[in-house]
């Protein structure tokens, strides 16, 4: 997902930058015509309609995937300054995994990374709460949990690993 997000962002940012650049270059050109205010109204409506469509599309299925299917494997992850504890070190591929995430002290962020150091999913660990997310690993391999929320002087050392193994056929 990340490359697509980057590409869309850069294209839109470049387009808006170009609009400013062209307006600046047109400072010594003709003044805006009488239809300028109509264009503004059109832009407001276009942004509103686009926003409604994108919002409806992106929220139609709740993005956090909290409702784990009945056959999900439960894995408990607890964090503290500065460690992650995982109660299951071998997770089968292709099986939905429900992570129950807790913290013993301050707020942490549990980010799950694949072997290429790409962030797959994340959730915050909040004192006094158990936060839950579901994720299904497709590929066997070594995965890492990195801390995503600043939690003190060894924040960057708060890393642990687990393995995803080939699931039963």
């Amino acid at each position, binding site marked *: 997902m990340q490359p697509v997000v980057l590409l869309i962002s850069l294209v839109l940012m470049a387009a808006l930058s170009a609009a400013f650049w062209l307006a600046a270059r047109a400072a010594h050109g003709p003044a805006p015509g009488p239809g300028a205010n109509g264009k503004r109204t059109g832009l407001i409506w276009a942004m509103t309609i686009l*926003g409604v469509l994108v919002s409806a599309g992106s929220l139609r299925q709740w993005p956090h995937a909290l409702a784990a299917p009945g056959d999900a494997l439960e894995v408990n992850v607890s964090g503290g300054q500065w460690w992650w504890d995982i109660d299951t070190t071998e997770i089968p591929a292709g099986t939905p995994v429900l992570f129950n995430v807790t913290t013993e002290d301050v707020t942490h962020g549990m980010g799950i990374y694949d072997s290429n150091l790409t962030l797959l999913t994340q959730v915050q660990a*909040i004192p006094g709460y158990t936060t839950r997310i579901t994720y299904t690993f497709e590929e066997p391999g070594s995965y890492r949990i990195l801390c995503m929320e600043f939690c003190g*002087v060894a924040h960057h050392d708060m890393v642990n690993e687990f393995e995803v193994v080939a699931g039963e056929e």
Partner: protein
Amino acid sequence: MSTASENFTSGYAAAEPQTGAVKLTMILSGAVFALMMVLGLAMRAAQSQWIGLDPDLFYQILTAHGAGMVGTAALSGAAIMWYFCGRYLVLGAAIFWAFLGLFLLGVALILGAIFIGGYGGAWTFLFPLPALSGGAWEASAAAAFMLGYTVIGVGFLLYYLELGRRIHARYGSLARALGWNLILGREDNDPPPPAIVAAAAVTIFNSIGIILGAAVLAASLVHLLVPGFEVDALLAKNLIYFFGHVFINASIYMAVTAVYEILPEYTGRPWTSNRVFAIAWNAVLIFVMAVYWHHLLQDVAMPPWMLVVGQLVSYFSGIPLIAVTAFSTFLYVRGSKMTWDLASALLVLSVAGWSVGSIPASIDGMISVNKVMHNTMWVPGHFHTYLLLGEVAMAFGFMAWLVRGRTIARMGGLDRAAFATYLAGAAGFVTVFLFSGAASIPRRWAVHYEEWLAHDRIGTLFSLLVVLGTLIIVLRFAARLRRSQG
């Protein structure tokens, strides 16, 4: 072009009584911006492994950089808005000096907490991190840091009370100053100018933000003194992000008054309030307070409807910005025959940077995207875009305008070099952050993996350019200030 300038400035000359205090505030702001950028450069160089920084010191610098930049953005924004509101209101000079004095006292407490007490809990002071340092700092250092915030908050409340009081006296009510007559189509012989509409909105939302910030600061201070006093961490996080988000947004919404008031001098076209403008600012007043939930999208314990509102408002708050402020800027600039000097170039750039930065912010505000972007380098990528190329550019543009000559002249070679260096450095710097975020590099890490070093090193080089451009702009301001007062 100079004729238009003289027409606009002559009417205001008698109504700008606190220029000295504002100039002092701006030179302080410029110096601190430069210093904080040097701290930012040091962090990028440490992540690049080009210099060595102990993680303890790195996180102290991270804390100072965050608190320092947010504070200075707000300070410079407040000085700009005070200056332009002074064209329409009689504001008490003693209040501004009290505000500045309290601000500096707060800064002294914060710097002492960080560099003497060793506090490194980040500017967001997420509860209960300040009390749980793992031995890195004492509770007294965390308390000094929070007292520093509280003192600054008291100064800002004084500032807004004075502003609100004077707006009420001059325009009859805050509602009228917010342009409700324009919205409702009622006749108004004395409609509020754009700077007053902005001041009324910011006075309301930032006062509410600061009061809620004070509540969580007080609770955290009690927790430091009496560890048995517990606060719900999620409630505390809501209060902190409400305060933090509103406060940093207020800095840009205050500084944009420079665009409303200065660009007309260059274009000869006054920037007037109309119905769409008033609706946009009333929408901002609501949106800026409702949007902070997008900081909590990975807190699944939050009620889902709040997260949905966070996503929706993240996007829709772009409409007043892009379709009203940015679009109006296009219209004001096109065919204006304006002269490009450092002030006008930086002010137009600031609206562009602010608008462009809202794009990656809105996209990150989608819950499904946030899942893989939250707390990666993507986040400093988008907020550095609308702060470095938005608020800071507004502040620098205002500074250049304050010390301009009597007539507007084209940009000289050094100004042109400063502008180009700053723009190239900042654009490259934020783009690297966005690429790093897309590469899943987490933010706020003192030590980086080998795989991330190329990003860090390119980012360091661009940040060096930003520092260089800033130094030229700030030193030019100081030199011209001396000459104009000599």
